[in-house]
């Protein structure tokens, strides 16, 4: 295996499973769902979500706090944790122009945009905030994080809808491989629990309707699944070349070994019926990592709990990796964090590799009989795990797979 490996030297997570990597990992392994009835969605067709419980932005000492949409707040909080984990001091860079920030999102600052639009309609154009765009634009989490950390290398926000966070990590690896940056702060962030987003997903019949029992609503791969539960949060990695990490004596927690991306070129929301795009992304990631399918022992699936995704994805996995490959979806616990999902799940996969524990799929009681892979349910599985793969698929038929190993 001669392919390039990008070292993960720091991780930060703020998700419905907890604030901080430690809390996240404990809840993801426990298989306890973070979903609950959401009073802010009262009266809408679906009134449940996966919130970051107990989150108060004022607890986190944000500079000029009124300038941060929630999605940018999450990004900075996760980035700070990742830097601390990596033993790096924000602003204390040897050369700030060699530090890149790549933070993807699907919805950007939609809460800000929705509130200001409402204000414009009710009060008039002169009353909207001058910060509407600096808070609302999708690239602003990356921009704000770069400002807060003094990172002056390449800075942008890839968007591939629900694959955005995984795209960011894949592109970060490319930046390192091409020698464009020494350190990349890479991940995804999302704060989409707004009336417009929830109502629009509900109109598409994409959300679970099991609002009377929110705890079991997100149930990937289950025969009775009926949609996803919307979530919020961020996941951020500090990534470096192995050489750079070794030189400064950093602890390498896991490595991003391969990145593959593809398009279904089929339909805006329905996956290709044979999972063609999913297969192409997984194959490209394996090729990039320079390994055969047999090297992958565990897959953290996209597994949204929608009727459409889960069977098609599992079928594509089975075709490539066989029936014996271990598969789970952590969305049973976290719900679907849209553009952040790919990043937080890459972090869960990195933790799986680091600890030798594959997390279970929460709420998986009756596996869909059309699925023929080794689904992990109820309890985590101890594995001698050297290498795994994480899938992320976005609307638009945009697919990303990451290979992460020890």
């Amino acid at each position, binding site marked *: 295996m001669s392919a390039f490996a990008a070292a993960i030297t720091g991780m930060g997570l703020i998700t419905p499973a907890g604030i901080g990597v430690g809390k996240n990992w404990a809840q993801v392994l426990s298989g306890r769902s973070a979903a609950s009835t959401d009073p802010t969605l009262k009266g809408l067709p679906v009134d449940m979500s996966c919130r970051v419980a107990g989150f108060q932005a004022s607890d986190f000492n944000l500079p000029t706090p009124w300038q941060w949409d929630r999605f940018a707040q999450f990004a900075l909080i996760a980035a700070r944790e990742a830097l601390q984990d990596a033993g790096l001091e924000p602003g204390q860079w040897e050369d700030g122009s060699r530090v890149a920030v790549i933070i993807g999102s699907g919805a950007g600052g939609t809460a800000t945009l929705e509130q200001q639009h409402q204000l414009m309609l009710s009060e008039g154009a*002169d009353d909207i905030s*001058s910060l509407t765009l600096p808070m609302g634009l999708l690239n602003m989490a990356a921009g704000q994080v770069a400002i807060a950390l003094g990172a002056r290398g390449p800075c942008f926000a890839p968007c591939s809808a629900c694959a955005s966070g995984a795209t960011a990590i894949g592109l970060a690896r490319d930046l390192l491989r091409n020698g464009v940056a020494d350190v990349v702060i890479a991940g995804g962030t999302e704060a989409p629990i707004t009336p417009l987003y929830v109502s629009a997903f509900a109109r598409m019949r994409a959300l679970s309707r099991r609002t009377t029992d929110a705890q079991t609503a997100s149930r990937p791969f289950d025969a009775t699944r009926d949609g996803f539960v919307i979530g919020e949060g961020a996941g951020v990695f500090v990534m470096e070349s192995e050489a750079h990490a070794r030189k400064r004596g950093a602890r390498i927690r896991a490595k991003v070994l391969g990145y593959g991306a593809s398009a279904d070129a089929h339909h805006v929301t329905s996956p290709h019926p044979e999972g063609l795009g999913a297969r192409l992304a997984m194959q490209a990631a394996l090729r990039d990592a320079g390994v055969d399918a047999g090297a992958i022992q565990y897959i953290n699936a996209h597994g949204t709990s929608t009727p459409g995704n889960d069977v098609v994805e599992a079928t594509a996995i089975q075709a490539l990796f066989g029936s014996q490959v271990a598969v789970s979806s952590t969305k049973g616990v976290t719900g679907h964090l849209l553009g952040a999902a790919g990043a937080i799940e890459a972090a869960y996969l990195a933790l799986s590799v680091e600890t030798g524990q594959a997390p279970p799929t929460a709420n998986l009681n009756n596996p869909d009989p059309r699925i023929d892979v080794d689904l992990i349910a109820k309890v985590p599985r101890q594995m001698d795990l050297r290498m795994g793969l994480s899938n992320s698929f976005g609307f638009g038929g945009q697919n990303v797979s990451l290979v992460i190993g020890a």
Partner: protein
Amino acid sequence: MKLTLQTLAQLIHDRFQIDHGLIVPDASLDELGFDSLSQIDLAVLLQKKAGVTISDAKLNEISKIADILVFANEGV
């Protein structure tokens, strides 16, 4: 009606989440973190919640909290 420091501090705190204790007459808008965009929002806040209209030209002359109080209470 006179705009007191206490009322002004409460308005600014509620909108911008700045600690009451920092909003003192000598505090400059710069120090409090008001960039040029945020100052526009501050002017809208004062107009909506305190009935004080500050033109863009006048806004340029305001550099600290005391300036707002003087301007708001001029002729009162």
